[in-house]
């Protein structure tokens, strides 16, 4: 017992011995090994992320475009007329800051149930564009009323909330264009009305935001171009995808020749629902009494009253440009933005009505193949309204390929000449992305993580500016309004609109004539030989 006690005392007296220090620090070498390994790995990653970017000449890639403030006060105030308040007209008004009060209520309800639903908050946070909707024209009384309700919703409130004075209603767009209290118009009518309304609006000196497509025919395209240029108005075609950051990044990357020689581009439409195939709901209050059918027909061939044709007009050539005008134009405009392709040399097309056998005349399956011999390039458009299997626009280059949507991903080609050394050295792997850009991130990243892929697969509707989530349609309208106020230029001006319209019409003609069609540069016509 005594012995034990004295031992204990001894150890206390001894304090910390050599043995204690050794045992205490025995595992420290493992920490050293971990840190050594971690920093070695980090420097390899750093090389991939920075040195490789430098070698690819991508270290100076641009930052996101700055967000410019809106001109405030009465001086900057613009008065807008909206022609057509159907599905798209309503969306445009909402993006411009004038949402239907019922929509505000439904967003508020959704946010109350699900706190992650931020649509209302994003909308309320959106900048005021300093505009008033002073005129609304629609030929269906229900849509017209909805337009008037939205026009009064300056304070972004629900039903019963504080409201401003509603816009003036016009039964005919020609009367709207005569009004003095309108600086600019938003046109969101069926395709067959686009040219005539745009020409008249330009002549009336109104600035124009026109939903795509520009026109129904080549002749109309020339007439619209002439009217817009002659009258010196600010014109914007409604391709909100012009505002997607990844398209700007793609343009820079292709400009720096990362992909090598690009000889092929493919773009797609992948839809698989009645709504996606333009089979929209028929409103229960719709009838010859509530719809001005004669004004709907307008420049189109005469036809007895038809609710299907009124609500689902995109299904008939009489009023619509079908897949090429409605959906290929989005793809083409994005590609044109990235590569400045212009009008193709020729086009062949095939397809048919294979799924939606509802009496439509426009195809639901379509392929169009465009040639650009001067650029050594083929552009293929492949569309299905009966399968939503996702395919993204792809640029095929000798050294790398690029997939482009709201995100951008570049893969090196395993047989690339340029990247041979890095591929052999294992620095570049053809099976993992060489470069990625996801919305909200600055610049471009080399080597992507699963986290980013996750963001990538979900960043489809919104783009990011200055770290905030912003609606691309809002940005596109804002860009147009800024230009009207004398600052900057619209990114989808008449030149881009003409290139897109002619490309779409070539696809349509090739399909309808079942022949290869060519663009005659001198005559400015589509010809078959």
């Amino acid at each position, binding site marked *: 017992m005594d012995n034990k006690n004295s031992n204990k005392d001894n150890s206390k007296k001894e*304090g*910390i011995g050599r043995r*204690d*220090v050794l*045992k*205490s*620090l*025995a*595992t*420290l070498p*493992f*920490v050293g090994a*971990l840190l050594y390994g*971690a920093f070695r*790995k*980090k420097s390899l*990653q750093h090389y991939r992320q920075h040195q490789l970017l430098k070698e690819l000449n991508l270290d100076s890639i641009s930052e996101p475009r700055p967000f410019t403030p809106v001109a405030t006060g009465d001086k900057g105030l613009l008065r807008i007329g909206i022609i057509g308040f159907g599905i798209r007209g309503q969306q445009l008004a909402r993006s411009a800051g004038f949402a239907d009060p019922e929509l505000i209520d439904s967003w508020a309800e959704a946010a109350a149930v699900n*706190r*992650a639903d*931020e649509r209302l908050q994003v909308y309320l946070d959106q900048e005021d564009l300093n505009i008033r909707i002073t005129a609304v024209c629609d030929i269906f009384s229900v849509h017209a009323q909805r337009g008037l309700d939205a026009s009064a919703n300056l304070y972004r409130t629900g039903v019963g909330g504080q409201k401003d004075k509603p816009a003036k209603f016009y039964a005919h767009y020609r009367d709207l264009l005569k009004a003095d209290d309108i600086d600019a118009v938003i046109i969101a009518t069926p395709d067959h009305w686009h040219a005539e309304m745009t020409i008249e609006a330009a002549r009336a000196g109104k600035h124009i935001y026109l939903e795509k497509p520009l026109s129904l025919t080549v002749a109309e395209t020339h007439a619209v171009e002439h009217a817009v240029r002659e009258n010196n108005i600010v014109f914007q075609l409604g391709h909100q995808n012009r505002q997607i950051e990844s398209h700007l990044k793609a343009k820079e990357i292709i400009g720096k020749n990362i992909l090598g020689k690009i000889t092929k581009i493919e773009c797609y439409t992948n839809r698989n629902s009645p709504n996606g195939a333009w089979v929209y709901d028929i409103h229960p209050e719709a009838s010859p009494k509530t719809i001005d059918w004669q004004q709907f027909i307008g420049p189109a061939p005469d036809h007895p009253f038809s609710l299907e044709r009124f609500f689902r007009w995109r299904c008939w050539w009489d009023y619509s440009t079908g897949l090429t005008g409605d959906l290929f134009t989005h793809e083409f405009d994005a590609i044109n933005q990235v590569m400045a392709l212009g009008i193709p040399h020729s086009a062949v097309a095939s397809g048919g009505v294979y799924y939606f056998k509802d009496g439509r005349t426009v195809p639901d399956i379509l392929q169009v193949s465009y040639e650009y011999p001067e650029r050594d390039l083929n552009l293929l458009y492949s569309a299905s309204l009966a399968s939503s299997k996702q395919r993204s626009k792809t640029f095929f280059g000798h050294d790398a390929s690029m997939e482009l949507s709201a995100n951008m991903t570049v893969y090196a080609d395993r047989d690339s000449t340029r990247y041979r050394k890095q591929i052999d050295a294992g620095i570049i792997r053809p099976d993992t992305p060489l470069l990625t850009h996801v919305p909200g*991130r600055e610049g471009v990243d080399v080597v992507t*993580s*699963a*986290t980013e892929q*996750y*963001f990538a697969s979900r960043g489809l509707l919104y783009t990011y500016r200055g770290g905030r989530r912003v609606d691309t349609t809002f940005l596109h309208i804002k860009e147009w309004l800024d230009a009207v106020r004398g600052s900057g230029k619209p990114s989808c001006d008449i030149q881009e609109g003409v290139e897109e319209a002619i490309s779409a019409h070539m696809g349509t003609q090739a399909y309808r004539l079942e022949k290869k069609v060519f663009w005659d540069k001198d005559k400015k016509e589509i010809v078959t030989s």
Partner: protein
Amino acid sequence: MQNSLTNGYSLPGLVSLVALRVAIGWHFMYEGISKLFQDNWTSYAFLMDSQGWFAGFFHRLASNQTALAVSDQLNMWGLTLIGLALMTGTFTKVAKIAGILLLLFYFAAQPPLIMAEYMFPSEGSYLWVNKTLIELLALAVLFVFPTGHIIGIDRLLKKLY
């Protein structure tokens, strides 16, 4: 036989327990520093990918900017410091409790349920029990059989204070 006992552990027992502690610490610490090394690491995707009983809680956590920022910092620094503590045997008791709690969160966020399919494919096949749970249980074993006061900085701390 009595001679080979070290503070009640046999030598092979002690070596195994310390090795397990160092290995778990290594795993924690490298998970932590690899996140610290990434410019923009976030727990967002992991939280949003949550399934099972607590999915709602983790989704809300991810969708709140402040909570997400706190969660990101706690993860990066928590993993690194718990790892360092386990490897060096410093404040091992606290580190083990913190480690168990963190692993409990990871397990609850993405339990290997019958119907669950996660975005990050797992390298093995798991049903109800996965490596997170096993690591958690291993930490529980280490909690019951501590070694920091024998091989670790805790030995010095115990002497000093």
